[in-house]
């Protein structure tokens, strides 16, 4: 059986190599998700300010960003001074993006500003996105720091390293999911029902304390790499979403926090599933966000000649917080009547207090 042992081992080795090569070079050509991830990751890494070109802005987040912000509209509203590049990895939280931005900065990314779109729960979450985080966002040099931060054991830590080194291993859950859907077409309907119930939000004081540490941490990371940090809290249909606590945390950490809409401020018919915005909702949100972003970014221009650390200190004196009412766009009834999509809502917003 010596020969067959060798044959079996060789077959398995060749198969593993084929999986790795396929996942790296073939799958991105045939699956939209992998192609998008590769494309957005590459573009994020390659962000550089160029003379005479619009200032680059990087916006990162999870599905709340993907479904809540219409990037072409945002670029239209922020242009020609700014150009926005998006990088979305679904189901990510704060720690995923803290380490993800460390990796991007090390790779040479130099946006003028980094916009992180997370809700309160995701901002204070103690977890990482597992293998996909390790594969797409983690720099192996941060492995021990990640281990300490999330208190993972040796096996889980080694799994993260392996997921970072092997594209197939890092993405195998998505591959498994794809095969499941192929074999059981109704699996997505079942999976939605199997989603764990969301735990209740902690008290605002706890959110504020945790969030302020993280907001300051992220702000410092961005400032060390010449970027302004802006946190955006997306709208929520829930009665309480922790956004006021996040705003207070932003004040405490002297960092810009934008909350374009208060909890339940947007009508339910602008949400697709009770969590993500639908297309109409995303247009409304993008419109509101763009006006506030422009003002925030323009204010930072006043400090752009300062050293990065000084810029962080200067921006500490400027906080966009307070109530959203002063900046609240009014959208006409047309926004609720299905006329969104022809710029009716976008063109007819008015701001009070200006």
């Amino acid at each position, binding site marked *: 059986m010596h020969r067959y042992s060798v044959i079996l081992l060789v077959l398995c080795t060749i198969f593993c190599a084929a999986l790795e090569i396929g996942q790296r070079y073939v799958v991105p050509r045939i699956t939209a998700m992998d192609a998008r991830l590769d494309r957005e990751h590459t573009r994020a890494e390659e962000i550089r300010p160029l003379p005479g070109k619009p200032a680059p802005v990087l916006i990162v987040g999870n599905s709340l960003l993907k479904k809540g912000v219409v990037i072409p509209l945002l670029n239209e509203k922020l242009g020609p001074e700014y150009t926005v590049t998006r990088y979305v990895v679904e*189901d990510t939280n704060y720690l995923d993006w803290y380490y993800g931005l460390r990796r991007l900065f090390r790779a040479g990314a130099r946006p003028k500003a980094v916009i992180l779109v997370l809700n309160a729960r995701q901002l204070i979450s103690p977890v990482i996105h597992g293998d996909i985080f390790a594969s797409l966002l983690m720099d192996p040099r941060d492995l021990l720091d990640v281990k300490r931060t999330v208190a993972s*054991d*040796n096996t*889980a830590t080694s799994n993260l390293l392996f997921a970072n080194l092997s594209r197939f291993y890092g993405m*195998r*859950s998505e591959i498994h999911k794809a095969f499941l859907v192929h074999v059981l077409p*109704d699996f997505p309907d*079942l999976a939605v029902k199997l*989603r764990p119930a969301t735990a209740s939000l902690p008290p605002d004081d706890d959110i504020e304390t945790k969030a302020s540490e993280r907001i300051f941490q992220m702000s410092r990371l961005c400032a060390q790499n010449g970027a302004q940090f802006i946190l955006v809290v997306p709208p929520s249909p829930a009665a309480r979403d922790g956004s006021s606590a996040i705003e207070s945390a932003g004040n405490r950490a002297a960092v810009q926090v934008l909350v374009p809409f208060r909890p339940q401020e947007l009508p339910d018919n602008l949400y697709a599933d009770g969590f993500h915005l639908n297309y109409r909702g995303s247009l409304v949100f993008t419109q509101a966000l763009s006006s506030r972003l422009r003002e925030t970014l323009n204010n930072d221009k006043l400090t752009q000649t300062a050293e990065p650390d000084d810029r962080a200190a200067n921006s500490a004196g400027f906080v966009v917080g307070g109530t959203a009412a002063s900046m609240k766009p009014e959208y006409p009834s047309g926004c609720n009547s299905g006329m969104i999509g022809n710029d009716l809502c976008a063109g007819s917003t008015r701001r009070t207090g200006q």
Partner: protein
Amino acid sequence: MLFDSPAFAIFLIAVVLLYWRLNRRWQNIFLLGASYFFYGWWDWRFLLLMAGSTSIDYLIAKKIPSLSNPAQRRALLILSLAINFSFLGFFKYFNFFVQSFAALLSTVGMHNVPISLLRILLPPGISFYTFQEVAYIVDVYKGKLQPSDSLIDYALFISLFPHLIAGPIQRPNHLLPQVQRERTLDWDKFFDGLMLILFGLFQKCVIADNCALIANSAFNGYFGATTLPVVLLGSYAFAWQIYGDFAGYSNIARGAAQLLGFHFMVNFRQPYLATTLQDFWRRWHISLSSWLRDYLYIPLGGNRKGEGRTYGNLLTTMLIGGLWHGANWTFVIWGGIHGGVLAIERVLGLGSDEPERAGWLTTWLKRILLFNLVCVTWVFFRAPSIHEAFVFLGGLSHWAWQPEYLTAFEFLALFSVPMFLMDLRLEGWDEEYIFQRASAWLRTGMGFTAMVAIAFFAANQANAFIYFQF
């Protein structure tokens, strides 16, 4: 390190490649070092505990045969048992007993009794290696086994990494001689080892981890209210999850041991094809059930002290066997139900060693009935408390149907039927692992097929939330 992790694969490859370049003496020293590295990878703080208890038992076992006074021999045996069970009792059961005592006091009106709960970490594998140490010292005491002259050999018998964390519990007279004698590379056994590892990974990563998605959702209430379909989904899914998980781990352990020239005992023999509960316990976790029979049930008197005492011994053995699985009353209840049914089978004369002459239909009806009985007991095994177990089982009386239930049953069938078919093959062909008697080419092909299935269908429990994101 978990058997299904890349770290273990790298570790195993490195150990096997270096091991076969050494002679027996250095093989044992090398394997001992590798096993302690493996254990330290889990938690280095408990290396001293395992080394200490190993050394104590080695010294006591060396001393026992030299004593002619039976009282002194017995005293040393009791000393060893007391030390072993004290370690196990403290690390695994201290908080359980303290909390249970406090709960008992509150039932008689003594509330707010100050209890001191310690933050005790559970040493990995302590239940398994303690039972091995006990088996060794008892066998030496009874004269069935000569104590090992070499501390290295004895320590390796206790800590050999394939079985250290999750068994199978190896008998001293089976494994220790293998440790003590020369081992040569047998390519037939090496190939068998590869096949055991691949099929073990298939059972663990494809069968068990996928069934766990359904089982966890049913038991955690993600399906909504607990109804008859949810109870069936949860209990059936958990039945295949625990079987795939445990049998898979055992097969990987056996396969890894086989790559190193060791033979481990078979731990599972198609348990869900049993027709009586007694038959089930001859097929499920065989290393534990035989240990309990030989070192607990028989010393208590077995069936030699009359019918009443026999039933008491059965119940006691199963209650302790239940508690061995975990520090929770649910495990005790689980063991108690099994003990009670075993006693009833004995009263009714079922489960005798006489070969069944039942027809095909009767056999399958018995199998279905027993499978469902075992699934009911699994509810207690899986639920976090007795109350929640009864609440879950209460769903049997509520009927409701959602379209997703059908998909869930299809999902469960997709990942349990292959295991069931594998068991049918093993039952019919009396093989130690599937396709053992097939041609070399077929076995190679099936091994590769298992590899492909693992690559595309292995669930990832660490990222289970991924499956909910669409």
